[in-house]
Structure formats: structure tokens, C-alpha cells
């Protein structure tokens, strides 16, 4: 659903010179420092172009720039604190060298639902105790992340990429203020379709 909305939004501003069309699947281990988690997502290429820059020495530098809209479902487990599931739509900017190494940056916006890390009770004014099931909270979520990786399609012609990414999640309103959480991803991106047509841009 997030991806659909994102695609509708971005397609209106799509440039006529779009050169590629690809859909990627992402899966990663999503560790919040020492705590485990996972992340699954899809990213859809909305803009892609090849850039050739000529240095003063006459040597050419060649790299691809890609822009994706993405939808991701993340989860992490912090024992005795909470489990957090979050769905986020994002905009990914990726720059890939001809060697296959790439860097990327992506802001995301979404919704988080936590589940408290322990039995949660309610006590009424008469002292009667009851258990509150699936106790937790909804938060608005903003995330920014940057990472590095290697695209195996460039040289080895394999349809996948490996990546490492650092994300900073912020959730609001968390007890009237915000909650910040660093998260590190190590994962794989699989290119479902990778019919990349590139046209050099001076």
C-alpha cells in the first residue's frame, strides 16, 4: 500500500528521459546494536542514468545514479522493552561505480507499532487487576539511513547486491517527546528485473 501511494506520487513528476525500469526485493538482518531484527522490502526504480565525468587528466569516471521508491517492513526485538514492527515508505538515492561498489542514502516515513516486552496489567480504582493483551503503542516514524554495498550485476552479472546500512529511527510522540534508535542492516537486494538501458549523460 505504501509503495502504491509512493509510486502514484512519484510518477507524476517522472522525467520523460527515464532510462531504466527495475523492481528489487530486499531482505536484511536488522540489528539494533546487540538486539536482533529483520527487514523486508521492495524498491522500484523511478529514475536511472549513467554519468560520465572527465577529469583534467583526461581520465573518465563512470557511474550510475539511481532513484528508487521503496516500501519496507521492519522489526526489532529488545528484550523486556518492546518488539517494534514498522512499515515505511522511502526515497533511495544510490550511486554505483562501474566496479560495482555503491553508496546510498534514504529518508523514510512510516508507522510503527510496538508490543511491550512483558505482561501488561491494568488495575482499576477498586484494585481489580486484569491483563491487557497486545499492549503497545502506535508511533509516527521517520528514518534516515546511509549505506554501502556491492552490485554483483556490474561485473559478475549476478542479479543481486550485498549491502550494509546504518539507519536512525525516530518515533513520535514517545512520552511527549521522541524516541531515537540506531539500527544496522546487513542484507541482500535481489533484482527481479534488471534490463538496465543506460545512456551516457555528459
Amino acid at each position, binding site marked *: 500500500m505504501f509503495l502504491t501511494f509512493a509510486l502514484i506520487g512519484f510518477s507524476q513528476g517522472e522525467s520523460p528521459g527515464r532510462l531504466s525500469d527495475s523492481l528489487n526485493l530486499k531482505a536484511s538482518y536488522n540489528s539494533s546494536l546487540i538486539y536482533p531484527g529483520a527487514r523486508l522490502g521492495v524498491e522500484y526504480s523511478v529514475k536511472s542514468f549513467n554519468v560520465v565525468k572527465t577529469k583534467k587528466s583526461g581520465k573518465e569516471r563512470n557511474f550510475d545514479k539511481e532513484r528508487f521508491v521503496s516500501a519496507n517492513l521492519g522489526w526489532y526485538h529488545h528484550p*523486556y522493552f518492546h518488539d517494534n514492527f514498522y512499515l515505511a515508505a522511502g526515497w533511495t538515492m544510490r550511486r554505483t561505480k562501474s566496479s560495482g561498489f555503491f553508496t546510498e542514502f534514504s529518508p523514510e516515513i512510516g508507522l510503527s507499532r510496538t508490543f511491550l516486552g512483558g505482561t*501488561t496489567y491494568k488495575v482499576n480504582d477498586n*484494585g481489580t487487576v486484569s491483563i491487557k*493483551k497486545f499492549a503497545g503503542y502506535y508511533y509516527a516514524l521517520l528514518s534516515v539511513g546511509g549505506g554501502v554495498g556491492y552490485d554483483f550485476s556490474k561485473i559478475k552479472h549476478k542479479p543481486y547486491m550485498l549491502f550494509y546500512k546504518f539507519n536512525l529511527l525516530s518515533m513520535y510522540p*514517545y512520552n*511527549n517527546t521522541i524516541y531515537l534508535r540506531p539500527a544496522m542492516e546487513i542484507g541482500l537486494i535481489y533484482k527481479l528485473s534488471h534490463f538496465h538501458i543506460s545512456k551516457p549523460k555528459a
Partner: protein
Amino acid sequence: MQSQTVFVLLILLLVSCQKEKITIGTNVSETFYLDNAGASMRILVEGNTASHAFLVIVHGGPGEGSIVYDTDYITQHIENKYAVAFWDQRDAGASQGNSNGNNLNLPQMTDDLKKVIELIKYRYGQESSIFILGHSFGGLLTSSFMTTDQNQSMIKGWIMVDGSQNYPLNDTLTRQMLLRVGQEQIALNKHINDWNSIIDFCTAHTGNFTLAESNQLETNAEYAESYMDEVNQFNLITAMEAVSINDDLPLTSILFNYLYSENAGFNATLAKTQFSSLLYKIVTPTLLLYGKYDFICPKELGDEVISKISTTDKRMVISPVSGHNFMFQDPVLFCLEVDNFIEKYR
């Protein structure tokens, strides 16, 4: 089929995390939450629940969180005999919620404490003996609890550690102590410039303190304690590092909760709050522990409590090497006194 399996696994994970588990044993560690008025407050129970004697820690701040009190020494010398409940108050520690700022006030927190005690009794047995220990701001909160309705009948004993039952009086006593000790230290050629700065502030601000003046007095009191050679100095950051990984602490939650609570609007109300006039209601056994060099909550606050409460079961102990953190600065004396008190009145 695979997506159904993943969904079922996730549901099982959540159910297992929130499944009720109550352990009666000698070396227990379990976490549960109290949901009340927009806040889900974490309670960590550790130690000997088989003793059916529970010490509920009411931390300072407001907003400091309870986990820092879970020291190795307390684990070895209190939790081996009794259970200790580390309660994170609303908007503190690992407690969670959305926009619940309207409920951050002393009457609501008093109700929270009452429900924490009811919950502990529900989980571990109505016959459980409950003792409450209020440190610093926790002294004000437990004073509120003890003087409200019939709350004190729920517990076997009240322990106040470097606590305050009267914030305006607290400010006056802090100022007096800073002036007196400051002049003594200057006469001894110790930290002359630092003390002169504190004395100048105290001379310029003589009473009827604003919240800003009250906060500055507290800051001066913290500095003053650090200038005293007689004090076993305590470092909060070092203490946090010691417990952070072992106790799965959500560090950013602790930090942002603290920053919010410390600056929340209700601090202005707290600055004018006092329970001195209601102390006569207290008939429950009471133990008061104060540091000789506590400038933040001077021991004269304890003198007032001792003189005004109605119980004859009362005792006040002064640590000669402590400032505002008796339990960390003089842990041997702290555990000895708390142990004797619980054993006597459980």
C-alpha cells in the same frame, strides 16, 4: 503458505513475550508493566520472591529511572533475602506511552504507586509484605502516598533516603547549608573560588525562591558535594555503564524520558509542594537515611519527619561519608539498615 507460517511465528513471538509468568523463587528476575492513565510503566522484580517481602524502589528525578539502583552490592545483600521491585515511574526509564504529559503530576504518580503495590500483591500474594523506599524526589512522592487516604495501610514500612517531604523548606535548608559549609571550607583554604561563587549566589537569593533559583540551588548543591573530601564520590554515568548491557536498558528511552521530565511544567508545582503539615497522619514504621554531606536534601529534612510523624517505630541514620546518594556512597551501612528494618517489620 510461507507467509502464513511467518505470520503465525510472529504472533507466537508476541504472545510469548507478553505471556504472564510469575515466579516464586530465591533468585528471580522478571519484568512486567502497569498500564495506567496513558503510561505503561516497567517494573523489574529481582531477588527472593519466596520471602514474600518486597522493597519497592521509588526513584528520584523526576524522570531518572530505577535501574541505576540495581547495583551488584544491593543484589548480593538485599535481593538474596527479599525481592526488590524497580519501578520506572511514568515518563521515566523504560516506561512508554504517547502524549501523556497532562497526567504527569504528583496526584497521578501517587495513584500509580498505589497500583504498583496492588499489582505486586496480585502477582505474588496478598499476604506479601511491602516496603517502599523513596530516594530524593521519591521522598516527595512517597510522602504524598503515605499521607493520602488509607494508603499507608497497604505497606509494612516506609524508608526515605536523602528525600524531601517539603520542597520550599528543602530550598531554605540547602541555602543555609551551602552558606555554613562554604564559609567553613573557605576558612580551611579549600576550593575558595568555587565556594565564593556559591556563597555569592546564596547571599543574593534569600528566600521565596523561583523555580529557576531552586534549580540553581540544586546545581550548587551538586557542585558543593563534589568539593567535599570526606564524601565517597559517586558517578552516575559509571553506574549506568555497569548495568546497561546486563539489564537490556533502552538507553535512548532513559535519556529522552529524563530530559522531558526534568523540564516538564509540573516541576513548577513541585517547587511549591509540601507534606509537612500532613506528616502527623503517619503511623507506619519509618526509617530515614541521610548523608551528612547531602546539600541537595539536607538531613534537617529528616529531623522534621522524625519529629512530626506519629509512629514510635522510627529511626534516623546519618552516613558520615555520603552526600545525596547514600545507597551508592555507603552501601554497607545502607544494606545493613534496610535489612534490619525489613526483618523487624515484615
